[in-house]
């Protein structure tokens, strides 16, 4: 089995870079392709797993091919097409192309050539060969839910934290994190980040032993704080990137173009000390319609970024988990009894994601299952997607 993980040096010596595409541009191409997969998938009501699988195919594909040779939006469509079949949510090739077309400018769509369907179908085989038919991909979502079930503490805060971490996982698809770290580690890192930002401090958890210093010691081994910080910063950096969509090479997506008001711009000192421009309406204002929950919980991470950025210093401080302290909080009720219905403020965003989309382009809102922290909802994905039997019984 091939390894699908790369170190940072390898990520900088890709076929595209050898083809003369600089690193920043390649990262933008990756982000734009991932975005098209997510936007197209959301518009077609595909599940978050399907979209995430498609994005992982996409990132892997460009570890073997150059963006110069394979135009990114064709590849993006092909990855979503293949992921749909693998995740058993198939969509017709022509419908995917149609939806993608509605999200792209004519100029961008021109890369699909004379016969777009033929182009995507031919690419399917190259894609399969490139990703070595390694079709089953795991994502951080399932781990996020699994880990959350073990954490003790204030239920509302926990929900908030999970919701936030879930969104970070969505956003992480636009980075190359899936090429660097296992989904378990990404889940831990982004829960750590969400915990920090939502001030949900995990002091006790189910299954804790004296060997565990931090809750994730139960699930992953040898994860250093440096590593977690690095992963978090890769996601945070997304929010502080200049809006690359304004470069001529890459005009903004149509739907955004129509509604993109000049965003109030603020600057913030990012982790690596660079001044970065932040546009506050870039991240999904998931909570726009949501009445703010109890005041000690920040409404949403993005407002935290754009309003009052978390002081890097405090963010970097590891949790002070008092060793051997008695459990402070009892297990939340959902762990012992039947899951309660989601509290009203969590049920947002409602299914009207798209009208919202028009006003504020949330990059990923639709990927979050409506009625968020999925583990509370009745139709939540099972934490461990069981394998299907190889052979369906004869009908």
């Amino acid at each position, binding site marked *: 089995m091939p390894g699908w993980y790369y170190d940072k040096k390898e990520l900088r010596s890709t076929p595209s870079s050898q083809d003369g595409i600089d690193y920043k541009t390649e990262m933008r191409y990756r982000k734009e392709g991932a975005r098209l997969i997510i936007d197209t998938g959301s518009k077609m009501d595909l599940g978050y797993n399907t979209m995430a699988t498609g994005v992982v195919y996409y990132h892997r594909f460009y570890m073997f091919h150059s963006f110069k040779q394979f135009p990114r939006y064709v590849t993006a469509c092909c990855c979503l097409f293949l992921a749909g079949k*693998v995740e058993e949510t198939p969509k017709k*090739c022509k419908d995917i192309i149609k939806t993608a077309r509605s999200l792209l400018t004519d100029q961008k769509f021109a890369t699909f050539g004379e016969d777009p369907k033929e182009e995507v179908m*031919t690419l399917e085989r190259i894609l399969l060969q490139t990703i070595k*038919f390694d*079709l089953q991909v795991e994502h951080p979502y399932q781990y996020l839910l699994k880990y959350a079930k073990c954490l003790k503490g204030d239920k509302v805060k926990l929900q908030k934290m999970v919701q936030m971490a879930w969104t970070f996982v969505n956003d992480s698809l636009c980075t190359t994190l899936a090429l660097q770290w296992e989904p378990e580690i990404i889940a831990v890192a982004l829960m750590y980040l969400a915990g920090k930002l939502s001030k949900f401090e995990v002091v006790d958890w189910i299954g804790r032993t004296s060997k565990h210093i931090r809750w994730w010691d139960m699930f992953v081994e040898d994860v250093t704080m440096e590593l977690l910080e690095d992963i978090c910063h890769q996601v945070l950096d997304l929010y502080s990137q200049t809006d690359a969509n304004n470069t001529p090479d890459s005009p903004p997506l149509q739907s955004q173009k129509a509604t993109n008001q000049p965003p109030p711009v603020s600057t913030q000192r990012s982790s690596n000390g660079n001044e970065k421009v932040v546009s506050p309406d870039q991240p999904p204002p998931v909570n726009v319609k949501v009445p703010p929950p109890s005041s000690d919980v920040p409404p949403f991470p993005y407002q935290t970024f754009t309003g009052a950025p978390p002081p890097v210093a405090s963010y970097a401080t590891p949790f002070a988990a008092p060793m051997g302290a008695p459990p402070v909080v009892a297990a939340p009720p959902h762990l012992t009894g039947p899951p309660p219905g989601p509290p009203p403020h969590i049920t947002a965003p409602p299914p009207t994601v798209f009208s919202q989309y028009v006003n504020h382009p949330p990059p990923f809102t639709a990927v979050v299952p409506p009625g968020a922290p999925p583990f509370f909802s009745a139709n939540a994905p099972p934490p461990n997607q069981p*394998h*299907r039997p*190889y*052979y369906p019984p004869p009908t």
Partner: protein
Amino acid sequence: MAYLENSMSADKQKAYEGLNKIGRGAYGTVYKAKDKQTGNDVALKKVCVPLDEDGIPMSTLREIALLRQLNSHDHPNIVKLLDICHGQQVGQDLVMFLVFEHIEQDLATYIEKNPKGFSTLQIRQLSRDILNGVDFLHSNRVIHRDLKPQNLLVTYDGHVKLADFGLAKTYDFDMKLTSVVVTLWYRAPEVLLGLSYATPVDIWSIGCIIVELYSLKPIFCGSSEGDQLSKIFRLLGKPAKHEWPEENTSIKWNSFDVINQITLGQFCPYICETAQDLIMGMLTFDPNKRMTALDALNHKYFKEEPINT
């Protein structure tokens, strides 16, 4: 883009040399070849995937995904899938090659080559390997469905690896259209009756195979579904009317008349009592009462001090 694709698949095939046909099953041809890069022998299984309007069918992709996934566990009793590559499109079919590690022989050949039979110790080892492999499949919710000596590979040091699951089975439907005869001998009663079935079908097959390791000949050699069932009932006895499945089946309880009943001991005198107990637990008519792979592995047959005969 088409030219790129062709050159890529051509590259792939150049990686293997010296195709020698070694097996021809119902679904595809298997070749022995050498991996030029590693120098290792590999088995190339050629399968034709029928393309539909939307490319490679979902069922095929699902099975490849699972095959890959299973292989990522590196289980010692599952044949290793090394690579997959596709060749040309022929008409509406895409030719694909599954590249496996090459294993000396299959169990059918192994039995043939040992006309004097196996020691109790060997049989126990082979049985345990088969059960370990199947337990692994079942705990991953995979049913093999076609366990038989031809689909079990035996390594040079006498270990068994399961082969031939997944991909090819999408052709069940086509199979009925062709004249290829698929053996019924290892099929569980519920399959013969056309009922819905699950993991217990594999346990039935293993029961038949373990008997064969002792007797060196298949225990139930039916020529049709009905004939196969009546051969089974000679050993098990005909199930009581209330045991006959309620589910709709075209085969009626009345249509069987069991004559010449035999016991396992009569069929093969070498099988010790403990082994008989294990085998009969696997050859149980009702799939719900049949032993599981894990039950079987915990059976005293595998715990007892080896008695070498």
